[in-house]
């Protein structure tokens, strides 16, 4: 009995002592912020230049503020993580959508931070940032003076590339998504109103005259036109998911931008597998998209491919891009979305795996230095 009491006293003394230990060791003034277990890189070495390689845009988790850009160096195949933070001592923001090269600058659309970060490419230092969007989505450069930015809520922003400011808005009441330029016209897909179901949404492609920034025409598409590319024969391909709610069968549309007619509609089976991330190679003769794997389709094909070129094998394939020079297929696996993702590089003729790279959270798009 006495022993028990003694033990309890000893235990409590120990407990109180450890309390004080915790107190004095944890009274630090370092701000408590999300940290990675990877040791921070040695910043005393000569500044890294991002010359030959791939900028991988890691979308990050919605509202977690963990978007980032990873750089894959062609020469060494090394990956440098979160290069924006390394150069600017702050995070890139919330939900990075895409990155476009313009002269010596990189323009990164950060959707939920509602801005575009402009960085100098060689050192990724922040040059300026553009704000005033309505949830920006994608950016397309028209010429050396201006670019268009689509948005989730409304309006297409016109950016002056000399001053990096919004000079004008092209009014739309709908969610505009991807865009491609043909002649003096910009073809911009529109999903419809964000807060409506696909039954009510009007899916279409707007045709905008880039000379005066006016919508001059529109054409109906399938629901959720999330992808657009232009092939070597100057035909525009639009990939429609059919709706996140499986409203209709997904489709791939080929349209003639001169006559403004739909030439052909390829319809996918409505099997719950939504196609996405339409890409085209540099020679513009083969298109790619993700479904239950990466699909490859010559622009001359008369039917949709029946088998994936690269099967997903249980991976969550999310971002896709084709290397502009060697034609390699870069596809990202986001794993469970709550850890850093992986990039797989495949040979586009044999489908053999060439390389894998560990990048940041939810890798979704790519920007090649050349």
């Amino acid at each position: 009995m006495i022993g028990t009491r003694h033990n309890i006293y000893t235990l409590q003394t120990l407990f109180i002592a450890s309390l004080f230990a915790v107190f004095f060791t944890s009274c630090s003034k370092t701000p408590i912020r999300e940290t990675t277990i990877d040791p921070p890189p040695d910043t005393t070495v000569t500044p890294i230049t991002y010359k030959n390689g791939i900028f991988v845009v890691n979308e990050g988790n919605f509202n977690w503020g963990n978007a980032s850009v990873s750089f894959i160096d062609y020469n060494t195949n090394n990956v440098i993580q979160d290069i924006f933070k390394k150069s600017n001592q702050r995070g890139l923001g919330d939900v990075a959508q895409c990155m476009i090269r313009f002269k010596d600058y990189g323009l990164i659309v950060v959707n939920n931070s509602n801005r575009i970060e402009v960085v100098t490419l060689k050192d990724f230092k922040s040059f300026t940032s553009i704000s005033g969007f309505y949830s920006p989505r994608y950016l397309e450069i028209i010429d050396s003076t201006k670019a268009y930015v689509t948005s989730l809520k409304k309006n297409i922003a016109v950016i002056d590339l000399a001053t990096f400011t919004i000079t004008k808005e092209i009014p739309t009441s709908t969610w505009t998504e991807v865009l491609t330029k043909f002649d003096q016209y910009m073809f911009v897909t529109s999903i419809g109103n964000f807060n409506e179901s696909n039954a009510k949404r009007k899916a279409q492609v707007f045709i905008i005259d880039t000379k005066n920034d006016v919508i001059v025409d529109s054409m109906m598409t399938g629901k959720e036109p999330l992808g657009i590319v232009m092939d070597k024969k100057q035909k525009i391909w639009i990939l429609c998911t059919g709706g996140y709610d499986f409203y209709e069968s997904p489709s791939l549309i080929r349209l003639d931008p001169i006559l403004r007619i739909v030439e052909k509609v390829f319809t996918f089976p409505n099997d719950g597998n939504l196609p996405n991330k339409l890409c085209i190679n540099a020679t513009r003769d083969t298109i790619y998209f993700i479904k239950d794997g990466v699909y490859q389709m010559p622009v001359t094909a008369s039917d949709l491919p029946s088998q994936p070129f690269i099967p997903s094998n249980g991976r969550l394939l999310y971002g896709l891009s084709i290397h502009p020079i060697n034609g390699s297929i870069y596809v990202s696996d986001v794993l469970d979305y709550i850890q850093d993702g992986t990039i797989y590089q495949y040979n586009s003729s044999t489908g053999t795996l060439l390389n894998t790279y560990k990048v940041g959270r939810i890798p979704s798009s790519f920007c090649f230095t050349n």
Partner: protein
Amino acid sequence: MFFVNFSGKSIAQNTKDTLHLPEFEIKSNYIFDNQGFKRVKLDSITLIPHLSSDLSTILSEYSTVFIKSYGNGTLATPSFRGTTAQHTQVEWNGINLNSPMLGQIDLSLVPVSQFDGIEILYGAAGLSRTSGAFGGVINLVTNPDWNNIADVIVAQTIGSFDNYTTNVNAAIGTRSFQSHTKFNYSSGLNDFPYYNDYLGEYVNQQNASFKIYGISQEFFWKLKDKHLFNAKIWYSHSKRNLPPTTSNFDTSNLEKELDKALRAVIEYKYVKSDLNLMIHSALSDQFMNYQNSLINANHQSYTWINRLRFSYNGIRNLSLQPGIDFNYDWVYSDSYTGMKSRSTLSLFAEINYEFNPKIKGSLVIRDDVVDGRFMPVIPAIGFEYKPFNKVNLVVTANTARNYRYPTLNELYWEIYGNPDLSPETNYIIELGSTYNYPSRNKKLFLEATFSGYYSWILDMIIWTPVEGSSSLWKPENVRQVNARGFEIGTNINWHIIGFDLGFKANYTFCHSTNEKAQIPNDNTVGKQIIYVPVNNLNSTVSLERWKFYFKYNFLFVGKRFTSTDNSYYMPAYSLSNIIFGKNFALDNFVLSLQVQINNLFNIDYQSVASRPMPGINYAFTLKFSFKKGIN
């Protein structure tokens, strides 16, 4: 009513000094009275200086329940023993406060002033209330003091960042009838300054203002000490702007939320020496509206709760407690197609048997019939062993199987819901001990508790991307989690040379890991679940003399991982809060002045990534109370 010990026995308290702890009244906080199951009480005395706080503050400062807070005055969810907020049921007088849609509750909407005490039922102990609470049940109780004639409190708190709270509580009654009326109103701009890393400058938090009010009325009747009736109604209303994350600091995406809840319960108890009967029926009506620049959605849910319990101790060494519960949930939501409902009929029995004066055992059997379908039987078994006659040491053990049924959102959310979900299964084993020592002269009271557990959650429901689609997510029964850990608690009270000294502390160790690979090359197996700290500690030192009181509260929150492969984390932090005040008493009147300093060392921290928290802040309370009892 703030003078009532919530075991139900009234105490003849020093009516003039609200914080005085009469040493002969100190009761154990750690109880194993459920014959082997763990129960912890937080009494009304602990709550007194926190009258203007919300439940999340109390739980994080005084219990082992981990609170995940998204910021001052915004969403705060409880979890314990490595489980989730959906495995934690919060009850107010037997009414489940968790939303039937979400299966969880926002603790920032529950003001401390609306209840008198907290009872925490750990793990399998919760099975006497409900199924599915793998972590446990937090029960908020209000109880009458039959010796009360009048007890009125009027308090005003003025805090930093234009935060104001008004409380008016009035309890009046006789030996057989008591009426409690409680009113709380809080408003705040909540525009605390913080360093925004993304913008690289100090900014004031924006869009964080709130207005919350609540009113409750309770009646208690007692007839011949045999028949107890009570009727309670509580309405609460909250209008909040939801602050942005640090990197979404753009005024174009302002969010706001309106919550309205009405809870009403009537209860009858028949109390005889060997036979008790309890019947209660309650209705909970919850409305929520969420708005941002694109969405405006309404969610209306109702729950009808009925509980019938018997208790019979007429047979030697044996007590039998059978019961029936019937709950019916129905929901009208902009996110559901049509009205969705669920009925749950539960058959319940608890058998306690005293093998000898040292060993007691209990068996709990519960079977739920959900929408007419019989679910597997839920058994729980517990033992209690008291090895010494003169030492207050109790050793306990229990084991149980438990199920959690999917929430209505998991089943019916338009397009995303999965009506084919199965219940989650939990197996738990637990060992515990509690010891207390009241000194012979009653000047010192020491208490210590320890419990260790191992818990397996199978078929856990998580939202998973549907194969082949990057935009469609559905809840699936795919995860397996093992949670194991231990909890240590201590409570010391010492009355010495006129001083009342107190020390309370809780430490928890919890290793809660993912056990099943879901993707190829899965790096997450064996890794800690995100936002569950392995180490967590809170402690309070209190001092009282000459009607002056002082409390120092210290919190340590260990590292919380933010990626499933455990390569990112939020670093550990510790916070210190102090409260001091003085009570000026004159006859039946007490005037209290109190100062509260939160985050004393001005720690720049985030509890959840990208969600800023305030630095040092203050609250000043002026409280006037009047109390008259039957002597």
